[in-house]
């Protein structure tokens, strides 16, 4: 379970789909199960697609924060460790 520690931060606010969820996926693949990734992204298409693919890949989003100005912050607990 996430303890409040953030292990990695990924800012994809300048990226468009599908780079947004490819970057997120690759980042999570480098992390260990239980570690926390913070993702900064914009509303609209990235928000529609990134959380959905993160969930489908077996990770857990445990916090979504609306930062205003069409910006969002996701906290994701990595669900799969790849040895």
């Amino acid at each position: 379970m996430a303890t409040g520690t953030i292990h990695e931060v990924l800012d994809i606010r300048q990226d468009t789909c599908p780079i947004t969820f490819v970057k997120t996926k690759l980042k999570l693949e480098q992390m260990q199960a239980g570690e926390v990734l913070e993702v900064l992204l914009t509303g609209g298409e990235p928000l529609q697609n990134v959380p959905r693919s993160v969930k489908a890949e077996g990770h857990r989003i445990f916090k979504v924060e609306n930062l205003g100005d069409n910006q969002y912050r996701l906290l994701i607990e990595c669900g799969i460790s790849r040895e």
Partner: protein
Amino acid sequence: MDTDTLAETLPAGLTPEDLKAGGIIPQRQNDKVVIRCMAPGGRITAARLHKIAEVAEKYGSGEVHLSVRMSPEILYVSLQDYPLVKEELAKVGQEIASCGKRVRVPTACGGCEYNPNGLVDTQGLALEFNRRYFGQDHYHKFKTAFSGCPIDCTRARESDLGFQGQVEPELVAEACSGCELCAEICPERALTMVAGLPVRDVERCLLCGDCLKICPNDALVAGRTGVAVYVGGKHGRHPHVAYPVAELVPEGEIFPVAEAVMAWYRENGRPGERIGLTVDRVGIDRLRRVLKPLIGPHLLQQHHIRRQRWRSVFWAGAADAFPHYGEV
């Protein structure tokens, strides 16, 4: 070549209409025909595709055209080679499609099998529909389309009979963390957070399922799942938007509904009339009455089609043009 000239060149007993039933379409060029291959849902095995390519090189111009409704068409085949072409294609189980006044090969998107948005097995449904009804005669062409979700890539609303996957989200309140993600991403702005929980506006919700796919806690789950049914759409010279007839019809009712709609068309249609025009002439309520015993609770009523969601899927003028849906 016009059809009269073609008729003169045909072997005795074979009319251009017979030819069309077999998916042979006369070309502009003398004696050349297009052979339309059957590919329900636009899906085809590599072996069949290889064979089609081989036949196109051997008997045609070496080119294939993909028809706007997903059938590979072999171009520039000589009419007298047709029996050989048919035999060649049959070796790998490749059948010939139809044209003319009959049930056409259905189109379908990837649906739930491999498209992330899909909610129903459109490919399986298209195959089965084709197996059951392909080639049946009607007053006019009869085109069917299966779309996996309300995005409607195969244009169910422009088909004589169209189906569109739908799912009704259901909230498991105990599992909800109140993260608001569902409300943020709902493309219809149908979810509002009230006391930390999403509340769905049924007037706006399009039953697309985006919210349950995104919910990180599986607090939104699939409730009733099924298809929206549209009847009477077409494109062509005089495009006609389909009548929305029912929603969340369970998959198991799709073929009974299709049969009832086609039987109704046989009974009420006129030669040369597409089903949409039959509905215009005879009235949507007559068709709704026939469907009531099958899918009564799923039939759309007047208050449904006046909802924002049904208004929003058509341009405003079309929604206003729907006749009054009476009590059936």
